[in-house]
């Protein structure tokens, strides 16, 4: 069985600090990370591989070369092949152009199941998984919180979806696309200390437009029809700190606060 995991490298938005004086987000020294939902997808695929060692796991991403160290680390935790699609012509692609690029690559490779994240913490449009389904003529489901690894084979997958109002279990014919949420708690394994500097270059597959042959103007900024109407920085209110003593009054203050918020 072959599982392809689509991933995105994103800025760690949790590390953004907010400057209450200038009402701006401070982005200095913010690192790039593997999108948490996508990491859960890879985590699940590697779990399957650990149970069924003949499973092949390929990670596919579209990213600039600067994120290569993060991708090498995926090979170091057990991913068989890491494909990254990178070409200046792709720069500035909107979600639809990105989906076209990814789909064109996927048409050249084999797979039984495609895993993606449901949301990305940077853009959060959730367009790409559904657009890939459309372009590849595959079924696609988002908000997956559990996949039955015992029932998984090349022909079908049984999984659970949480759509906020209900939790349902489905069976889907494969090949197909499942978009996982980090709430699934499938965890990406850590790199073993011994493998931190392991040479994994032979597992890296770099794809450029020489391989995909898009015409100029069909992808990248020029080929992206999405227009951004307005961007704004979410405003945060500074909260006042209340310090209480370890006494009756302090306990009462904390209890009232928790009661007020509905925790007790």
């Amino acid at each position, binding site marked *: 069985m072959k599982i392809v995991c689509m991933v995105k490298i994103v800025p760690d938005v949790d590390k953004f600090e907010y400057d209450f004086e200038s009402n701006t987000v401070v982005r200095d020294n913010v*690192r790039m990370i593997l999108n948490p939902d996508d990491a859960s997808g890879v985590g699940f695929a590697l779990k399957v591989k650990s149970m069924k060692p003949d499973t092949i796991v390929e990670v596919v991403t579209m990213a600039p070369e600067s994120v290569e160290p993060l991708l090498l680390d995926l090979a170091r935790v057990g991913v068989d092949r890491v494909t990254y699609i990178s070409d200046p012509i792709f720069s500035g692609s909107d979600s639809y152009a990105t989906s076209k690029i990814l789909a064109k690559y996927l048409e050249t490779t084999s797979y039984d199941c495609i895993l993606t994240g449901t949301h990305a913490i940077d853009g959060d449009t959730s367009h790409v998984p559904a657009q890939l389904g459309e372009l590849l003529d595959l079924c696609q489901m988002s908000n997956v919180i559990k996949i039955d690894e015992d029932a998984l084979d090349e022909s079908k997958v049984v999984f659970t979806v949480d759509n906020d109002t209900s939790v349902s279990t489905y069976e889907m014919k494969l090949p197909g696309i499942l978009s996982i949420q980090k709430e699934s708690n499938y965890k990406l394994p*850590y*790199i073993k*200390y011994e493998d*931190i500097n392991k040479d994994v270059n032979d597992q890296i597959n770099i794809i450029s437009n020489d391989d995909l042959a898009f015409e100029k103007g069909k992808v990248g900024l020029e080929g992206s029809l999405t227009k951004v109407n307005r961007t704004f920085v979410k405003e945060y209110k500074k909260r006042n700190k209340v310090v209480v003593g370890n006494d009756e009054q302090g306990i009462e203050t904390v209890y009232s606060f928790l009661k007020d918020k509905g925790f007790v």
Partner: protein
Amino acid sequence: MNKDQIVQSLIDLLSKDQVNTNHEALYDASADRYKKYAKARKVLKVPMPLAIVYPNDTQEISELLKFCNKNLINVIPRGGKTATEGGLENWKDITIVIDALHLDKIIKIDPYNSQATVQAGVALQDLEDELRKIGCTTGHSPQSKPVAKYGGLLATRSIGQFSTLYGGIEDMVVGLECVFPDGHISRIKNVSRRSGGPDIRHIAIGNEGSLCYITEATIKIFKFYPENNKFYGYLIKDVETGIKVLREVMVNGFRPSVARTYSEQDAAQHFYHFHDNKCVLLFMAEGPKGIVEATGQAIEEAVEKFKDGIIKQVDSQLISDWFDNLNWSQKDIDDEYEGMIENDSHAGYTTEISADWETIPKIYNNVIKKVKSEFPRAHDLTMLGGHSSHSYLNGTNMYFVYNYKINCAPEDEMLIYHHAIQKIIVEETLRMGGSMCHHHGIGKFRNEWSKQEHGSAFYMLEKLKEVFDPKGIMNYGTIFPQEDAIKKYIYKG
């Protein structure tokens, strides 16, 4: 002799009740707080000792050591289990732990001569409680006070929070008894002072179980004047200002019992109720009223001299309250252990070093800069700072404090995070001429730098080892570096 035969021999030497081979107890005895996270997650990759034995007296310890020496069995002496540098970690397949559990008698409290004699397994807190009943104190108060025992305190050259007045444990020990691997029992007599050749107390004090087993100690006791205590606290501009004020008080000849300076980050975790994101300077003056008054005045004069760096004074009650809740009890240790099982986190680590007044701020600044720029996982740091908490006429210590998000497997955490940070601290300190180990001992995780720490004087330590422990049965890998074991148990070679 196979493992079963060794255990049977131990039972024959002592009794069945004095030999513990319970799996859980042996796992617990495999490592100390240096690998606390891996230990809690049950992924320790070191051999378990064959048994923990609980001798009843010095003679039994002598017999045990003779037996181990004859049969080349590694021995780890153990007291309150609060070691932090690997002194209690086991690096040998054939090892027994000799626990001071039954050496728990306070032999004599002698207020007229200001001294008390205790067995190695007496908990510091127990003696302190007894002394308070007669208006005295040990003057020794490490954070581990509720748990630590006298054997361990002596063996690691422990220090307490009131050391600036009372001194470290080495200043308190009058005499002691210890047992060497050949079974010889040495008693160093209790006198106020003598010039009878080199001070041989210091062969045992700080030996970390690598030369002998300490069975008994006589220590000084002090009159206690809690009603006179005075506290002083200040928010200050930077660590350098704090160090300057500490120095001013010390070189002018005053001995506050507590004299501390905290970085902003460390202050934030200790003084959440008043730190205001600033550094903190604090003092406690203790002793007879006249001395307290004079010390208080000296503190205020020193603060005035460096007033450009002082932001404001804080309510002294806040400092007093903080001291009352500073020590960690067995429950605190157990709670952290449980927390590490449930969460990918722990309460952080420390590395303590010392140097002269001039050098300590340079080491502090260099280390902070280097950790931020050279530590590969600097982005995972959630806390990095430090405090000076033990001052002397010619210098002070620096207690580096750090914590981090753990983004690695539990078995790799020590090497990827704690040891990597400690390496930067130790190497920078040694480069600057300081000492890499102010009061936690060398243990097993700083022994790769033992020779650098002591330089040409390491010769003296090596000779002591050759003479007192020629077969190398005492706490293998502690203080004295063992290259193969360092590769295997630290660097996974």
